[in-house]
């Protein structure tokens, strides 16, 4: 190793700091799941998971200093995934059944009678 290279301790520093942040976020997610937040528990847990993935991808997968092309490919995967979710839910969340308007059809419609119609 030449003198111009960083000392070995430097290669531990950033991953360790990110690891501490990830563990803290993981514990926060676990702890918050036991709080009586009603419908907010799952969105909060998913938001924390999203933040953890962002930290992992930026600093451990090193997207923060990657070439633009690599970042573009990473973002593209997520963008196509969001299209898949948006298009699917634009169908499921807008289905209305005959006896309970606004609710998904599978709740209120006799499946046997309507088999093949949706």
């Amino acid at each position: 190793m030449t003198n111009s290279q960083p000392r070995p301790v430097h290669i531990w520093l950033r991953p360790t700091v990110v690891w501490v942040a990830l563990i803290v976020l993981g514990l926060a997610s676990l702890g918050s799941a036991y709080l009586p937040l009603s419908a907010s528990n799952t969105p909060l847990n998913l938001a924390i998971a999203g933040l953890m993935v962002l930290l992992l991808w930026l600093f451990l997968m090193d997207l923060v200093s990657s070439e633009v092309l690599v970042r573009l490919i990473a973002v593209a995967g997520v963008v196509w995934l969001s299209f898949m979710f948006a298009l699917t839910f634009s169908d499921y969340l807008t289905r209305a059944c005959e006896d309970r308007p606004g609710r998904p059809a599978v709740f209120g419609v006799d499946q046997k009678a309507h088999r093949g119609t949706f």
Partner: protein
Amino acid sequence: MSDTATALREPWPDLDRQREGVSVGIWLFIASEVLFFGALFLGYAVYRSLYPEAFRIAGAETEVFYGSMNLVLLLTSSVTMTIAVDASRRGMRRTVVVCLALTMLLGAAFLLFKGLEYSADIAKALFPGAHFPLRPPQTQLFWGLYWVMTGVHAIHLAIGIGVVGVFALILRRRLLPIESPAILGVATYWHFVDTVWIILFPLLYLVDRS
């Protein structure tokens, strides 16, 4: 001939460009994996939106201790993998091999905990079928997704452990230059497997805990 010189392959003019090539290739693969796992997450989201009560009842039965321990194990393994990549760039062969071995051990520990968790689940008969203990019947959708998602994830992890193990052995025997950018591909795959678990954790283990 130095390690740097032997690590450089045709048609790349220098190691930085070669690393970029490896990154582009593995990220294209990861993007396809995002959509593969995304389809499973989408199935989960649709069924959970249709049967929220059944998913609440079913989700309360997962083993949160094993899920949390495995989260810590995989997050730690991502750190050792990152250090291995950085050490590789600096030509620190011993650090690279030790960190890859640690990564592999942490992955194996994950599978061990997963096995213990699966045996606890099977003991409670939480496998979709005629003797499934939970009601309403839609609780089986949650557990069907649980087995498929965690099973596919475990297969990915097992493949990762094998690849990391072979790579560590190759580097230890000096069959590959320590600065070879191939380690980037291995590391990115490993981090992606960790990513999947980060998302699975709240979906499977933190349902109805309050």
